[in-house]
């Protein structure tokens, strides 16, 4: 695997990590001052309480000062990275510009203002109201740290991801930031007070851990996406490291709460105090480690923007469940597994039959596991790669040219045959027009195209093209192979046996909007290619608000939306298996999920020249959605 290198260098990442650590420490101290210290110190003498409040105050004030210093360092190092200069003077000159004109700089200025206000509140020994003000200001500083993350860049404005990030950081601050105040309490207070502090800290810590886990799961779902992203990208790998450190932290927390803190009230309080102090210090150290990991994570592109590298020879797949026999086999195995687990549970509860039950469950599990085999299929490192092309019309058309010069020799001009060039090969070249093509992911096709197909007797039946074609060209080929597969099926049977994605394009509208293909999702699009009788969309728009007309023309469209994508007609011709590359006079309907659903050619019966016929077709498409993932439906254009 590629080593994890934080973008912008380690100094920048450490400056960021220290800023976050200082912010969480300030918030944790304020939270301790509001929720734990008043209760823990309720029964102690006045002198003792005054001394402890003073310690907590100094810690909070020190943290606030650190926020300002670390933030300034971060600003300078970040400017150095953004301005891409090695000169100190150039960096210093660029600082005001970065602070004033970038989102990062604006956030830093807000953080500095907040930290200064916090320092002002903490300039005198705070009352309880003062601690509450410090809590509010440090919470704001913590939320501002969350704004530096991926959430705001991916979803500008207030998003669920940003809320989750903020709550995650606040919970981390209340928990990890509370460890130093707790350490001070254990170090200087009598055992009884220290034990009370640990007890009052416990519910806060437990709540925080629950919140951290729930928000982390949500963030993992949005930024990592799934198991391939988790194990196949640097971002996912680091998230796993962070998870391991969290487990260590939880171990310390459990030991502190249930073993070390209660021992303060036992026979040897001095020894118990030493153990608890050591444990809290270690826990704080691991807490800093997790913050460093978080800072590196923030500097890496999220896993969902990366191509995940799959390290195993198999991957889970529900594909086999389409086969009734295999479905029955798997269902039996799952039932047996469930029975095995159930019997094991009963055995654990009911002592008398324990060993018999455990033995029976082991047998059941051992018998059933091999029958789960159909749930796993062969996998390749690129199995979970996703095509970056968006099935763009330009990509399909470029793929067509690449196919003719690189693939047609063996696979035939249409991708189906075994031309003379393939006669010498031990196994016939794959029929790229077979419906089976759609069972393979883009990532699998990419692997075969890059590294070749192995022959049963050894060697390669098909060569790999990694050395001769660029990655983009290989993705173009995959788009063309799919489009051609759909077109051949359409020509032969008059329908698409598999849902066919519409080719990607972008359009601009008379009102100045520019729409890319993703913007067009959520409604039915009618693509209109001008012909002799086929007119461009009427200026008043379509009669149905769910329908958007897009003209495919290089001439200026008088009204409505138009695309000048000159590859789109040719791509549509390939997808429909039509020899007329201009597709003049054709109209196409694309459903709200982006599937190409219907086509009307000029002069054909049941034409869409009649508004009723067109709207009936639109309603039929909306009433029978395929869904974003596709399915096994046949589609008649």
């Amino acid at each position, binding site marked *: 695997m590629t080593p994890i290198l934080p973008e912008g260098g380690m100094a920048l990442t450490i400056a960021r990590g220290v800023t976050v650590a200082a912010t969480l420490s300030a918030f944790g101290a304020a939270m301790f001052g509001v929720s734990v210290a008043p209760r823990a110190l309720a029964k102690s003498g006045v002198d003792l309480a005054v001394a402890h409040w003073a310690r907590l105050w100094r810690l909070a004030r020190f943290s606030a000062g650190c926020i300002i210093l670390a933030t300034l360092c971060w600003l300078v190092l970040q400017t150095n990275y*953004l301005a891409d200069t090695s000169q100190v003077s150039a960096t210093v000159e660029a600082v005001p510009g970065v602070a004033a004109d970038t989102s990062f700089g604006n956030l830093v200025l807000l953080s500095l203002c907040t930290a200064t206000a916090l320092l002002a509140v903490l300039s005198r020994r705070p009352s309880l109201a003062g601690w509450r003000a410090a809590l509010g200001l440090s919470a704001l500083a913590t939320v501002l740290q969350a704004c530096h993350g991926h959430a705001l860049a991916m979803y500008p404005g207030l998003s669920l991801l940003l809320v989750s990030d903020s709550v995650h950081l606040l919970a981390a601050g209340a928990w990890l930031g509370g460890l130093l105040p707790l350490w001070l309490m254990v170090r200087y207070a009598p055992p009884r007070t220290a034990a009370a502090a640990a007890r009052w800290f416990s519910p806060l810590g437990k709540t925080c851990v629950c919140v951290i886990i729930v928000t982390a799961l949500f963030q993992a779902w949005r930024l990592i996406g799934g198991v391939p992203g988790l194990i196949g990208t640097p971002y996912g790998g680091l998230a796993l490291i962070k998870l391991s450190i969290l487990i260590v932290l939880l171990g310390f927390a459990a030991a502190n709460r249930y073993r070390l803190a209660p021992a303060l009230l036992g026979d040897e309080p001095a020894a118990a105090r030493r153990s608890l102090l050591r444990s809290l210090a270690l826990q704080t150290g691991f807490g800093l480690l997790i913050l460093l990991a978080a800072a590196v994570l923030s500097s890496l592109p999220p896993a969902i923007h990366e191509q995940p590298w799959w390290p195993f020879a198999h991957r889970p797949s529900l594909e086999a469940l389409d086969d009734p026999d295999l479905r029955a086999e798997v269902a039996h195995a799952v039932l047996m597994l469930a029975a095995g687990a159930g019997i094991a549970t009963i055995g654990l509860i009911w002592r008398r039959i324990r060993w018999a039950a455990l033995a029976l469950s082991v047998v059941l599990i051992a018998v059933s596991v091999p029958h789960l085999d159909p749930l796993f299929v062969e996998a390749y490192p690129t199995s979970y790669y996703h095509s970056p092309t968006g099935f763009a019309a330009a990509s399909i058309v470029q793929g067509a040219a690449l196919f003719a010069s690189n693939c047609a020799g063996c696979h035939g001009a249409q991708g189906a045959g075994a031309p003379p060039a393939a006669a010498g090969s031990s196994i016939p070249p794959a029929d790229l027009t077979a419906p*089976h093509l759609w069972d393979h992911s883009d990532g699998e096709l990419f692997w075969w195209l890059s590294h070749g197909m192995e022959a*049963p007797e050894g060697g390669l039946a098909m060569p790999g093209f990694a050395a001769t074609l660029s990655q983009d060209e290989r993705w173009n080929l995959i788009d063309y192979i799919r489009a051609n597969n759909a077109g051949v099926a359409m020509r032969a049977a008059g329908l698409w046996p598999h849902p066919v994605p519409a080719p990607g394009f972008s359009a601009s509208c008379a009102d100045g909007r*520019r729409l890319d293909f993703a913007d067009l999702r959520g409604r039915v699009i009618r693509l209109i290619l001008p012909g002799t009788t086929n007119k461009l969309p009427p200026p008043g728009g379509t009669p149905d608000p769910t329908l958007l007309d897009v003209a495919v023309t290089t001439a200026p469209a008088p009204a409505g939306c138009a695309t*000048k994508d000159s590859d789109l007609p040719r791509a549509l011709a390939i997808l429909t298996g039509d020899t007329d590359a201009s597709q003049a006079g054709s109209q196409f309907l694309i459903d709200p999920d982006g599937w190409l659903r219907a086509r009307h050619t000029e002069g054909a019966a049941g034409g869409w020249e009649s508004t009723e016929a067109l709207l009936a077709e639109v309603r039929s498409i909306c009433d029978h959605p395929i869904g974003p993932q596709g399915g096994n439906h046949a589609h008649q254009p």
Partner: protein
Amino acid sequence: MRAVRNTSLVTTLLFVPVTAAMAHAHLKSATPPAGAVVQTAPSEVVIDFTEALEPKFSSIEVSDSAGTPVDKHDAHTAPGDANRLIVDLQQLPPGTYTVKWHATATDTHKTSGTYKFTVRP
């Protein structure tokens, strides 16, 4: 089908690394698209990114096959859409053009890339 998969296994190549593992997929779409052959010369290059950009630290440079810049050095984000970077072009004669983009997202990530498009005579 499993039998077909077994015959087509490439297990020996399973742990050969490919360079794509570190690719950043920050460019979402571009007009003209990468590799496109267009009939009419575009008046601008528009690139949509997966994240909002810092216009001050993002740029698009377009040059002809001789390496001469043909853009108007005015790369800017679209009004109301910080994910979209636009640069205006001079009148382009037919030929192949190289688009070089540098993007800095608002979370300070930098990415860059290059692609070509062709204006057909």
